[in-house]
C-alpha cells in the first residue's frame, strides 16, 4: 500500500495515499475539531472548523476535503486558528436559537461540546433570534429548525447512504433551511423510508425522535461509516 508521510504539529506521520488531511491529523492525535464532517459521508467543508495551516500555502485548508500529500508541514492549533474557531462557534450560536436547557440533545450535543472545546463561554456577536418553525408532521420524528446549524449531514446521509434524498436545502444565505421533499411537511414525503439515519447523524437537537424529551436524545453517528465500509468491502459485522 502506498503511503505518504507528512508532519503534523512537529510529529511525523504516515497515512495511506489518498487519505485526507483530517485522517493525518488524527494519526498525530491532533484533535482537529469538526462539525459538518462525518466519517462515511462525502465532505462539504462548510463548517470551516477543521481549517489548518499548511506551510507553503497562502490559504487555510479544510482538513476534511484536502488530500494529504508527501512532505506537507501542517499546523492545527496556531493562535489564529484557535481564534477563528472560537468566532465560528460564536457565529453558529448567534445565528440560530440554541437553548440548551430545554433541548433534547442537551449533554449529547456536538455544538455544545464544540463550545467547550474551543473555549466559547459567550458570544461577542448579538443573537439574531430568527423566526423559525418546527415540523412535527412525521409520525416518528420531529425537525426543529431553531436548532439546525445547516451541517447537511442529514441531506448527505439520506442521499448517499439511504438513497432516498428526502432532504435538501432551500433558500439562500441566512434564510437557508433544510427542506423535506419539495419543501413539503416531512410527514407527507413519500420518499422517506423512516429509517431514522438523519436523526442519528444530526449533531444537535434539530432532528429527534418524538419519544425523546429534554436531554434524552442518544444519537449514534457511527452508522454511515459502518455502512459505507460494509458496502465497500462486502463485509458485515454480523457475518
Amino acid at each position, binding site marked *: 500500500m502506498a503511503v505518504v508521510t507528512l508532519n503534523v504539529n512537529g510529529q511525523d506521520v504516515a497515512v495511506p495515499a489518498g487519505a485526507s488531511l483530517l485522517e493525518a491529523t488524527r494519526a498525530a492525535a491532533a484533535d482537529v475539531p469538526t462539525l459538518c464532517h462525518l466519517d462515511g459521508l462525502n465532505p*462539504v*467543508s462548510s463548517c*470551516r472548523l477543521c481549517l489548518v495551516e499548511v506551510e507553503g500555502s497562502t490559504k487555510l485548508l*479544510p482538513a476534511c476535503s484536502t488530500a494529504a500529500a508527501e512532505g506537507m508541514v501542517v499546523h492545527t492549533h496556531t493562535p489564529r486558528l484557535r481564534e477563528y474557531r472560537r468566532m*465560528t462557534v460564536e457565529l453558529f450560536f*448567534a445565528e440560530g436559537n440554541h437553548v440548551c436547557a430545554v433541548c433534547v440533545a442537551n449533554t449529547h450535543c456536538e455544538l455544545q461540546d464544540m463550545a467547550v472545546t474551543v473555549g466559547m463561554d459567550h458570544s461577542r*456577536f448579538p443573537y439574531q433570534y430568527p423566526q423559525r418553525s418546527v415540523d412535527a408532521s412525521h409520525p416518528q420524528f420531529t425537525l426543529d429548525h431553531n436548532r439546525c446549524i445547516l451541517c447537511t449531514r442529514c441531506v448527505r446521509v439520506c442521499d448517499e447512504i439511504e438513497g432516498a434524498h428526502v432532504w435538501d436545502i432551500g*433558500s*439562500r444565505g441566512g434564510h*437557508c433551511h433544510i427542506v423535506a421533499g419539495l419543501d413539503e411537511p416531512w410527514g407527507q414525503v413519500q420518499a422517506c423510508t423512516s429509517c431514522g439515519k438523519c436523526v442519528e447523524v444530526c449533531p444537535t437537537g434539530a432532528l429527534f425522535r418524538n419519544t425523546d424529551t429534554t436531554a434524552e436524545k442518544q444519537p449514534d453517528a457511527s452508522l454511515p461509516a459502518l455502512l459505507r465500509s460494509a458496502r465497500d468491502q462486502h463485509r458485515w459485522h454480523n457475518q
Partner: protein
Amino acid sequence: MPSPVQVRCCDASGCRSAGSQALRTALEGARDAAGLDPSQLTIKPVGCLRQCGSGPLVACDRPGRTQLFGGLAPEQAGALIAETLANPADDLAAHRIDLEGPFFALQRPVVLEGCGQVNPESIDDAIAFGTYAQLQRILQEFTPEQVRDEVRRSGLRGRGGAGYPTGLKWDTVALQPPGPRYVVCNADEGDPGAFMDRSVLESDPHRLIEGMAIAAYAVGAERGFVYVRAEYPLAIERLRLALQQARSRHLLGNHIHGTSFNLRLEVRVGAGAYVCGEETALLLSIQGQRGMPQPRPPFPAQSGLWGAPTLINNVETFTAVPAILREGGDWYAAMGTEHSKGTKVFALSGAVVNTGLVEVPMGTPLRTVVEVIGGGVPDGSPIKAVQTGGPSGGCIPAERLDTPVDYESLLELGSMMGSGGMVVMGQSTSMPEVARHFMGFSVNESCGKCVPCRAGTVQLAQLLDRFVERRATAEDMERLDALCQMVKVTSLCGLGQAAPNPVLSTLRWFRHEYEAACREPSDCVATARVR
C-alpha cells in the same frame, strides 16, 4: 455591398432605454420622406457605441467622415438625415460628440472592435466584418498546440477577475487524459456597476462564438455552454439568434469547414443567483443542481461538467481570442504591462461625466481613465475615490489615482480588477455607507453553505449599520476589524473571501470616517492608535 453612406443606431440595452428604437423608426421615416431608398442610405441597428450616458447614440458615416450624435429626439431625425447627406444642420451642434476627444482617442478597442460596427442580429454583417475568418484559418492551418502557443504568448489573463493565465488554463484542460471535454463561457456578470459582458453579448455575439469555437478546438472539446444570467434578456435573445445563424451556416455543428472538428454550443440561463458566477457553482447550475460552490481542488480544468475536464473563461477573455490569432500573440503582448498584457474593458459609471464602456491598454493610470477619459465629476469637484471590482473589490482613494491599472497594482491597494466595473465617487459619498451597501449585497447573495459567509456577513452588515447610524463604539471597531479578517480567510469560496474587501479597503484609506462615526469618536481614535 452596403452603401458607404450609412447611419448606425445603437440598439443595445442602454440606448434602448433612452429611446433608440423610436429614433431609428423616425430616421427610417425621414429617409423615406427625403425620397431615398435603403441602397442609398443604410440605417442599421448596431451594438454599443460606448458613450452610454449620452444615449441614444447615432453614428453617421460618409466616405472620409464619421460623426457621432447623442441624445437626439425622434423629431430631429430629419435634420440628422440632412447632416449625413452633407448639409450641416446647426441645431444638431449641441448633440455632436467629439470623436477626436479623449473619451475615444485614448481608447484601444480590441474586444470592442466590432461593437457599434456590426449589426448584432446579422451574421452576414459579422462575416463581412471578418468574424469567423480566424476560425476558418486555424482549422485549416493550425494544430491545437499552435493555437494554445499563440494564446500563451499573448500573455492573456482571465478577464473574469482573478486573472489566471489563459494559456495555462487551456493547456491544463488539453493535457488531461483522453475523453470528453467541455468549454463554458461565464456570462453571469453580476457585479453592481459592471456591464461590459452584457454589451459584448448584445453587440457582437458572433465574435464570442468564434472565440469559444477556437478555444474548443484548442482544448479538444466538442460541446460547450454559455451561462448567461436571466437578467440579460436582450443578450440571451441575440446570442440564441447568433447561435442559430451560425448553425445554419455550418459554422457550428459537425465537420466545421470540412474538417473533423465538431462543436455544439448551447445557452444556459441562470436563475438569479450571484454566486453562480463562481465557477464550481456555475457548473453545478448547468448540470441542473443547486448552485453552491465546491471545495477546490479538483479544479474544473481537471474535473468539471459531469466529471470531465472543463474550460471556463469569461466573455471578455473568449472575445479577445480572435484578434489575438489574427494579429499574433506578440502583438497582444506588446500592449499592457509586464505581468498584465493587452487591453481591458471597463464599465465606467457613478459621479463621472462620460458614462460608458472604456477599453484601454493595461497599465493605463487610473487617473487617465476616470479624469481624462471619464471627464471627472460632473460638477468639477475633485474625485474622492474609485470603486473597482464590485462587492469583491474596494475603494481606491484619490491620492492613489496615478496607479497603473493592472491585476497586481489593484490588489496591492486592497481592491481588485474584478470583472471591470468602475464606479467613481464624489466628495459627498460616505465610505461607511458604501461599505454597508456592498455588505448588504453580499448578505443577500451568500449561498448559505459556509458559516463565515452565511452568518458573518449578517453580523458585519449589522456592525456597519451602527457606524452609519453613528452609534458605534470602540469595541465595534475592534469587532469589525476582527470579523472582516475572519470572514476573509475562512470562507469557502471567492464570494465570501472577498465580501469584507469593501470594508477593509475603506477602513484602510478612510479610517477617519469610521472613527468619526463612533458615538464617542475620541475613544475609537485611541483604540486605533493602540493597535
